[in-house]
């Protein structure tokens, strides 16, 4: 390699390293702000802002969904397996909304600690499988539970 080419190679490596390091520093500094949502635990610790819009995310707790038969009002609980928060929402829910589903809501914190949501978004997981496979997995899981109960 000729010296000139070596210099340009070094220049290229220096640029990449320099940018990578500055990106790491900048992103570490911004860590909190890049998160799309607050988890129920973060909200329980009082990290969520009061009186302004923020997003909360978690799993819809089993058996917590309550619909008002007269209107589109709905309330449910979000959990992250440690803490739970109550969410109230009026409107149409996305297709994937169901118990056990990961959900992101946008709203304000009410004085009683509930989140008054203005928008509900569904998060889907990274698993893709045919319905039959899911059915088989469910059956296997139930049988496993039943067997465990017998022992």
């Amino acid at each position, binding site marked *: *390699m000729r010296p000139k*080419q070596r210099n*340009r*190679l070094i220049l*290229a490596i220096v*640029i*990449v390293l320099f*940018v*990578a390091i500055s*990106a790491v520093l900048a*992103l570490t500094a911004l*860590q909190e702000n*890049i*998160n*799309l*949502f607050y*988890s129920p635990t973060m909200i329980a610790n009082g990290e969520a802002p009061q009186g302004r819009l923020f997003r909360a*995310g978690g799993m819809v707790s089993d058996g917590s969904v309550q619909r008002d038969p007269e209107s589109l009002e709905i309330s449910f609980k979000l959990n992250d397996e440690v803490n739970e928060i109550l969410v109230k929402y009026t409107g149409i*829910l*996305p*297709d*994937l909304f169901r118990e056990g589903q990961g959900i*992101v809501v946008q709203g304000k914190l009410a004085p009683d600690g509930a989140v008054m949501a203005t*928008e*509900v*978004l*569904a*998060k*889907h*997981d*990274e*698993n*893709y*499988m*045919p*319905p*039959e*496979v*899911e*059915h088989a997995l469910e059956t296997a899981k139930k049988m496993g539970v039943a067997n465990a109960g017998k022992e």
Partner: protein
Amino acid sequence: MSIIPNWLYQLSSPKNFYRFAGIASNWCGWIALFLLVVGLYYGLVNSPPDYQQGDSARIMYIHVPAAWMSMFVYMVMAGSAAVGMIWRIKASSAFANASAPVGAMFTALALATGMLWGKPMWGTYWVWDARLTSELILLFLYLGYMALQSAIDDRDTAARATAILALVGMVNITIIHYSVEWWNTLHQGATVTKLDKPSIHLSMLIPLLVMAMAFKFYYLSNALRRARCELLERERDKLWVRELVGENNSE
């Protein structure tokens, strides 16, 4: 001492590259067409619907390969631009320039199909989470690369400037890939490109990979063709181009 093998060194001359690219681009084009037909048939007709999302999940056979390609093309473009800058290889710079529009197209396709998929599943077309935002920045990087390249008249200066821009943008590729792990995002985590076993059923993984290969061959075919055009234009005063044009005229 040279770290470049001899055959590669010969290929790097514009004349040889022009000939090689012509043949390779045709082959890649036909392979891409074949894989595209097979992949689309298996993806849209012959693969099962998803357990949660039903038939809507089929858009992933376009969305996921397009998103992979948007990052793959960028890495090839940055590498090729860097080689072109360091060793002053015209064919390499030309290939980098040719990659930019193809990469921008794949990025736009990934964003558009992602939005169409997001509306029914997430409940929104767009959300400013880390994955979506960094992918949008990637589109701007491609557009910036093309703008910078066409703004500088002197080709050697342009090659140097664009190579530096491309290298600086490399950091965004890492951010896109890890955005779903480092931060809370609405976009789900990686399904296939992770160290664990892919969390997708084989009957859906195969058409996905076939589509990914189809897109790769399409990229090669398209970019090689564009690189040929650029080389012809760049070398229009050189003997080999004149001979080439002369040959065609006398026929």
